[in-house]
């Protein structure tokens, strides 16, 4: 039995800004919800071809495919944290500092 | 392939001679080939003889050649494989006085380091030269500024400049 295809989206980091961006089919968007999701091998191959296009090197760095679950969220924790664009805790001036008891 | 030194692009008057093939006016031979030719090279003037070596060449093997050749071309398999820098400095420290060539995809940003380590010239692939044209190499050569180390490029280093300032 063939393994069921796992949907993927194409991501990279913006060259100038550095933030995580997602390929929408037309542009690189900071939002995963705008990403073009490949739902079969052929569509995934299309995204891979985009990732390998040297012209993209002028806009983004390190393009790769991310596997998504049924809800369109990344399957791996690493990718989920990255897609959320923030650490999992409050940092900087928002850090909830408190005294030792 | 494009060759340059501090003066800019220069013609390459050396011929890379295949193993066993007849010598040219100025022959650049692989080290193994030169060793294999043995006595046949004895009458050849250093001006006509050069060695092409990989960057992991054992220095003991090079010792007998240092006074017999006028060019050593050290291969850089990749720009970030830095063994050639050490090999060059070690050869200069041993007293090698001929020309040293860095041959491979080194980038303009490394030009100053190459010069300081004792290289005189770089020979880069055409594709790299197209991406980093001569103007970028000229700029890199000009940018060679202050360094803390004493290199083989004849430039005064920071320590010497400080000593001079102290004298004043």
């Amino acid at each position, binding site marked *: 039995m063939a393994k069921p295809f796992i949907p993927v989206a194409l991501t990279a980091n913006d060259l100038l800004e550095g933030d995580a961006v997602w390929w929408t089919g037309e542009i690189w968007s900071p939002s995963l919800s705008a990403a073009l999701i490949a739902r079969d091998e052929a569509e995934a191959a299309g995204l891979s071809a985009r990732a390998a296009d040297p012209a993209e090197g002028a806009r983004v760095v390190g393009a790769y495919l991310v596997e998504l679950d049924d809800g369109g969220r990344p399957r791996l924790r690493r990718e989920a944290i990255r897609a959320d664009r923030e650490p999992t805790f409050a940092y*900087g001036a928002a850090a909830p500092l408190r005294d030792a008891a | 392939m494009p060759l340059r030194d501090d003066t800019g692009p220069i013609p390459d008057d050396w011929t890379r001679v295949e193993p066993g093939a007849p010598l040219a006016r100025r022959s650049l031979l692989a080290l193994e080939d030169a060793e294999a030719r043995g006595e046949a090279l004895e009458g050849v003037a250093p001006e006509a003889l050069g060695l092409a070596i990989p960057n992991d060449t054992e220095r003991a093997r090079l010792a007998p050649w240092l006074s017999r050749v006028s060019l050593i071309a050290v291969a850089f398999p990749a720009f970030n494989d830095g063994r050639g820098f050490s090999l060059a400095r070690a050869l200069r420290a041993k007293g090698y006085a001929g020309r040293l060539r860095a041959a491979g995809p080194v980038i303009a940003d490394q030009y100053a380091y190459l010069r300081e380590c004792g290289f005189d010239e770089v020979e880069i692939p055409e594709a790299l030269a197209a991406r*980093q044209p001569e103007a970028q190499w000229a700029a890199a050569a000009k940018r060679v500024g202050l360094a803390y180390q004493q290199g083989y490029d004849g430039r005064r280093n920071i320590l010497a400049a400080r000593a001079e300032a102290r004298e004043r």
Partner: protein
Amino acid sequence: MYRYDEFDAAFVEARAAEFRGQVARRLSGALTEEEFRPLRLMNGLYLQLHAYMLRVAIPYGVLNGGQMRALAEISERYDRGYGHFTTRQNIQFNWPKLRDAPDIIDDLAKVGMHAIQTSGNCIRNTTTDPFAGVAPDEIEDPRPTCELIRQWSSLHPEFTFLGRKFKIAVTGAEADRAAIRVHDIGVQLVRNAAGEPGYRLFVGGGLGRTPMIGKVIRDFLPKADLLPYLEACLRIYNLFGRRDNKYKARIKILVHEVGIEEYARLVEEEFAAMDGTAAPDAAEVARIEAYFAPPAYRERPATSALFERMKREDAGFAAWARRNVHPHRVPGYAAATISLKPIGGAPGDATAEQMRMMAEVAERWSLDELCVTHEQNIVLPHVALDDLYAVWTRLRAQGLDAANRGLVTDIIACPGLDYCALATARSIPVAQMIAERFTDQALQEKIGPLSIKISGCINACGHHHVGHIGILGLDKAGVESYQITIGGDATETAALGDRTGPGFSYEEVTGAIGALVETYLERREAGETFLQCYRRLGMDAFKERLYAAA
């Protein structure tokens, strides 16, 4: 402290201009990403999970108030208003943009700072004892040696494209507060039988995926020979170190594979044939040493009535004085640690406001000097005993008065999966959960010296191998799993921790640390630290409780 002269300043400015040009050439396509990457790394610029990250060099951890203020300003102008002090005594900003990076580098240059060689396969920022220059047990101040190495290693033409990164640490005391035995090269200031100063050199230590304790390559090296000898060490490494596998490219693997005797033989042979260009002249050494002459201390009584009184009157201050105040070689003075490990914070983080406060405190009360420690705290090296209460009051106003230096909540943690592109598990939230469990100051002090070090992947940036308790976060089939080691030690009695056994989930790891600490509290003898207790009892005593519930 060392101050740039016109030549250092020109050097840093030239480098800043070069970097600006490199960024422009990356954007124009003259440099590919593959070519640009090592160049930006050599200027401290990484590309991480969410953003670029810029690591700024703080040579051997020392900076002044003006520099700290400049860091605060950079964090606000170009980043998100905070910075992260690292185990290599540097600071990193987590959210800079490539378009701003040349401007940041320019701003740094204005205050005599830079990001040169804070990353990349080159010689990294030299680290040392944060109490350098004030520690009573010091044979000699290690900082002039560090500065010599800084200059020698800065853009060394031969060693900017090594097989892998290269880290050097220096200590001036027998007590090793710089972890020199887990560095590529460790340098210890010693005196020989004739009383002459020199160095003992360790080589081939390191953490990462193949942790090793460094081996002595020279028991005594005359001072003047240091740089040529280092050059010989580096050249042999550069020529003979492995290039076929980046995980086997560190010098520790070379030393391990050829053996310390053979490596030493090669180095000595090279050293004997050196051309002598590396050794600085005596005038240069004297010039550097002059910068580290003792600052203008005032003559003070050895004790302070005010300090003693405030300890009696304020229990919070008394706790801080017990834990965070350290002896000083000058009567009437102390060194004080500002803990960057408040409960609820991220280890090593400081906001712009906190940085400015630290700058002000240093300028007013510590002869304008601060030192970043490899435990991710900040040391104020020259505080008069009379001023300690005022200092503490200021720190308290910014939440930086945690009295936990060296205690269970003084946790070292790498950025982990929350920031780092390489990480396999989160580190900072684990540190926060453990700290929450040991909030009680009395309990912390009862437990005593205990270093917990957390790495979010096998690269070991959190130094977990040398934590009394080490925690290594891994990914097991998509789930975070934390391996625990105990018995690690980064000091002169260096040891690598032993693995307890199977790992723990994110939810379980705090309880596991609790079990280890409880075992220690129950089984310890009078005056015995966690580390001593483990060395006496061995693994089984701890393992039993640790896995009892499982």
